[in-house]
């Protein structure tokens, strides 16, 4: 879902860079207090995993593919601040080293694939930190995963619209419906993969997911 270079107008990319820059600065300040010895390696390998997963485009509709966003998953496993740092790092590497996503669109892309889905994932995080996450955690994660992708997709269209990068004859509603429809399908995969990965990581690295803030409550629960 990377916005390429040559689409966003200077006011739009500058405003989105300011918003994402602020979010990233706040994330760095907040993450400091939440990082412990076990979480830093988890943060690193989750970044490597999301980078890898984004390379795997899966067919979703005839002639259309989708790939994992990953921000939602990071929000659940690491919380919003650390998740935003990881997504921003991935997007910077993709833009600067692999020509994937516009350099001037980085602010917008970090907001669309980082800030928004990370916040939604963080909202679902509490359900997974319970001793036995049940059907509610699965259902909420699937629904919020779809929402995260559709929200990001809608924001991408809005950024293009504000930048006059959509043809004159196209109505905003039509563009949003088209983009939302495709990404609702991609979002189902995002939600399902998120459930599977969260279950796996919780099974093998629960302590690192819980982090320092939860270490004591974990000990009590265990």
């Amino acid at each position, binding site marked *: 879902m990377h916005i390429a270079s040559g689409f966003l107008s200077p006011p739009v990319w500058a405003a989105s860079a300011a918003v994402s820059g602020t979010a990233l600065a706040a994330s760095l300040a907040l993450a400091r207090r939440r990082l412990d010895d076990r979480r830093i390696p988890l943060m690193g390998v989750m*970044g490597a*995993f999301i980078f890898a997963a984004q390379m795997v485009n899966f*067919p979703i509709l005839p002639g259309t*593919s989708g790939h994992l966003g990953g921000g939602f998953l990071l929000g659940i496993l690491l919380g919003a601040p650390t998740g935003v740092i990881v997504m921003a790092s991935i997007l910077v590497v993709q833009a600067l080293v692999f020509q994937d996503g516009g350099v001037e669109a980085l602010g917008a892309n970090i907001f669309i694939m980082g800030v928004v889905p990370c916040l939604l994932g963080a909202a679902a995080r509490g359900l997974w930190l319970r001793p036995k996450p049940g059907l509610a955690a699965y259902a909420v994660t699937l629904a919020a995963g779809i929402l995260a992708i559709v929200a990001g997709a809608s924001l991408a269209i809005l950024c293009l619209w504000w930048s006059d990068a959509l043809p004159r004859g*196209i109505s905003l509603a039509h563009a949003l419906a088209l983009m939302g429809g495709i990404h609702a399908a991609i979002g189902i995969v995002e939600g399902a993969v998120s459930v599977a990965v969260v279950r796996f990581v919780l099974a093998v690295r629960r302590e690192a997911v819980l982090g320092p803030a939860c270490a004591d409550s974990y000990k009590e629960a265990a």
Partner: protein
Amino acid sequence: MNLYNRRTLVGGAAIALLIAGVISYFASPSPDGLEKAQEELGAAAPVRQAVEVPPVVFQEYNLKWLGEGFWANAAAGGAGSLLVLALLLGIGRLLRRGGETLGGEGRSASPRS
């Protein structure tokens, strides 16, 4: 580094490398959701001056000198994954050094059942 963290790194990196280096080669070549929507809306071509990033080492997700085959993709995916991993470990280390407030060394030994 303790065994727990070494296992996190080795296991996680192995999974990422398998996906980036091998599975990604079989990815769908179709345009992704945004590209497809832009095509259908007649908005696929840039409307203003694009910022060109020179493909110094990688031509998109292929190592330049290997063309476009399996190994070019594997090298690019593997290198990209490890680059992200290294970058994040560096950021984590810097943040940790800056904020020795909570979760100090004393806590790291605990809940391991």
